[in-house]
């Protein structure tokens, strides 16, 4: 495994060669990154002297106590519909896609069903979650701020697939069940409450949706 640093065979005869790969070793290793020569060259990068201040910097890092990661967390995806930040358990998410054109369905005047969309060549129902759970529309100022963050979430449960356009998606959060707060009674009693729990995230309250009720209502709403 003798390698000279200046050899750089991966650029000369390997996969990054200008005139195409021709190293005989590629038969065996397929890609240079699997080859001992390349690995060893990478390891040799670590055989440099310590930079100045390296020891002080790491000394500072290591004297900090490690933060305990809470265990037993619960993954949710947080997203924004109109003005509200909502969350659904991550296990229902098939994927997040860029917005695609919605084809309206004739003779369907219900605002909940926005139409159908083409996801990887399959026709899926596109649902306005804002209408389903009766959220107020986004303020016009915010709407003007741009549609760059708009996405569509593809959600599936028991083989049914639903597509929801959302204004923004933040991503997956790991929430500890102890941080969930109960929904205020005034909200919980109202007919349209799909909120199961509330949790704080940064400076916002995020409503975790009641997935069972949500999917049940979805099925009802499109029948």
């Amino acid at each position: 495994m003798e390698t000279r640093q200046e050899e750089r065979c991966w650029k000369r005869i390997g996969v990054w060669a200008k005139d195409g790969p021709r190293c005989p070793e590629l038969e065996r290793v397929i890609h240079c990154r699997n080859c001992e020569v390349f690995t060893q060259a990478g390891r040799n990068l670590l055989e440099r002297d310590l930079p100045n201040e390296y020891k002080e910097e790491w000394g500072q890092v290591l004297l900090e106590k490690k933060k305990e990661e809470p265990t037993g967390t619960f993954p949710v995806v947080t997203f924004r519909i109109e003005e509200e930040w909502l969350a659904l358990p991550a296990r229902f998410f098939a994927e997040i896609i860029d917005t695609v054109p919605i084809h309206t369905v004739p003779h369907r005047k219900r605002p909940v069903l926005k139409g159908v969309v083409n996801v990887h060549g399959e026709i899926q129902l596109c649902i306005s979650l804002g209408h389903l759970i009766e959220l107020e529309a986004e303020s016009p100022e915010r709407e003007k701020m741009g549609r760059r963050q708009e996405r569509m979430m593809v959600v599936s449960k028991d083989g049914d697939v639903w597509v929801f356009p959302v204004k923004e998606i933040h991503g997956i959060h790991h929430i500890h069940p102890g941080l969930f707060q109960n929904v205020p009674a005034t909200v919980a009693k109202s007919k349209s409450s799909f909120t199961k729990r509330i949790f704080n995230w940064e400076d916002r309250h995020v409503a975790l949706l009641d997935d069972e009720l949500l999917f049940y209502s979805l099925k009802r709403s499109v029948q």
Partner: protein
Amino acid sequence: MLVLIFYLGDTMYTMKCDRVREIAPMVKLKQVPHTPDYFAGLFNYRGVVVPVVDLRQLIQGCPCRMRLSTRIILVDYLREDQTPAVIGLMAERVTDAARKSQDAFVSPGLTMQDAPYLGGFIMEENEMIQYIDLDLLPKAFRFLPMLEGRHDVPVKD
């Protein structure tokens, strides 16, 4: 079994990973006078003062080179009085771990009076890698002030 591969000079050594708590980069160590030359110093590891031993100095008699791959292996061990503690072991080219079966560990039956922790080997296809026994290693540091067992202190009846 997962083992850590590292070098002291040009010689490859290994140790079992089950006691290894963390691999830390090289940090600035607080030198302590009147300690053996293999005692590299102390550092503040997450709020605990941890002694660091230069393994190359201990085994080969010359200090570890200060390279980016020279790291401190933080190992859990039990003191003489059975209290848990952490010690740092400085070694070179700490860049790999490997899986070895239990059968690969062999002991040629050597017992070295001064280095009982160096008795075993891992058999490779074409070479033997000496492994450092972490059960026996801390006992070799008995005369370090930090690790001194209580029995060394005269007890009055």
